[in-house]
């Protein structure tokens, strides 16, 4: 799907929509060149950056720039490719491919030196041609798999993987029962031993 894939009968973008999509394109270019000042110039002063999978939200230029510094520090070669974009009124929805090598601690996770490449999607709201909010969607499990911290899906879905998951889930559910059984068996064995004595 190309970024310009728009139905033949669609009315052209309004001036405001053209401005909005241009701002987002520019922001992505700054994001890929790690230009924090350039990015902030694309943001409204009340901009909110919401990282949906991390349940983390950054509000205003100062909080966002602290986050961006930590992001570029953790992934010094971080690159974003815009793959598709849809604009309507004050909304822009953009799809990306994000690629970077994890070379420093990020969200408490020490460097894995793994190169991560993930698809992500942003739901962006605009105000006066600047970005007011960006809700980012991606899959954290995919990142952990690429970092070697979670097994690949082929392993998870293989019979041993499924057996492990079954044990993890059912083991947890039956743990109290097993606990009671062990304690009960121990108590009974003590009781009978005492009787024999």
């Amino acid at each position, binding site marked *: 799907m190309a970024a310009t894939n728009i139905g033949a*009968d669609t009315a052209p973008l309004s001036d405001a929509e053209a401005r909005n999509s241009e701002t987002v394109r520019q922001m992505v270019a700054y994001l890929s060149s790690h230009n924090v000042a350039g990015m902030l110039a694309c943001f409204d002063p009340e901009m909110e950056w919401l990282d949906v999978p991390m349940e983390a939200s950054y509000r205003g230029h100062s909080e966002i720039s602290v986050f961006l510094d930590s992001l570029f520090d953790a992934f010094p070669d971080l690159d974003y490719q815009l793959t598709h974009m849809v*604009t309507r009124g004050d909304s822009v*929805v953009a799809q990306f491919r994000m690629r970077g090598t994890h070379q420093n601690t990020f969200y408490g*996770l020490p*460097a*894995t030196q793994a190169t991560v490449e993930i698809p992500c999607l942003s739901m962006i709201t605009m105000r006066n041609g600047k970005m007011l909010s960006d809700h980012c*969607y991606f899959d954290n*499990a995919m990142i952990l798999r690429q970092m070697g911290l979670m097994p690949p899906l082929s392993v998870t879905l293989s019979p041993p993987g499924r057996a492990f998951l079954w044990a993890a889930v059912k083991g947890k559910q039956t743990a109290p029962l097993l606990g009671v059984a062990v304690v009960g068996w121990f108590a009974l064995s003590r009781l009978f031993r005492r009787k024999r004595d």
Partner: protein
Amino acid sequence: MTEATTSQVLNEIELANLRSVTDVLQYWNRQDIEGVLGYYDDSIIWLNIAMEETYRGKGEVRVFLRKLFAAFPDLSFEVTYKIARGDNVAEQWLIRGTHLGTFMGIPSTGRHVEIPGMSMAELRNARFVSDHFYFDALGVLRDMALMPPLSVSQTLVGRGALGMGVAASRLARALVRAIQSRR
């Protein structure tokens, strides 16, 4: 607000597409697979980003929906925001359900899950031809209580565990590389 309101008038195609993505929801919420498939084109390509799976054609989508509804028999699908332009509709959604059957290889946990996600859909003749489906599988695992909450990574013990996990993973990869280079 669940729809982008704009002074610009939507064209016939966009209105029909928005109608379809709204009308299909009643079938999702009744777990009516054939009803849902009625809104899909035969050439549908559904990209399940988090599970790294692609379903081609109604047959493959049917198989996935069967598994999904078996795992979450009370599944509800709520669209919180959507925009339409040309052949595209982008939707922000929330799936809720009780995990009562195997999902992603995980047997039923009986837990309630809430999955926030987004779809980038493309329609032709008001039927889905493509759907890119984004959600966070790690969040689903947290809801199933198979992963600790994110706040754990901020604690000393959590950081220690993460450090050990990373060290073990790097050691394992170094070993694999060493074995491969000896061959």
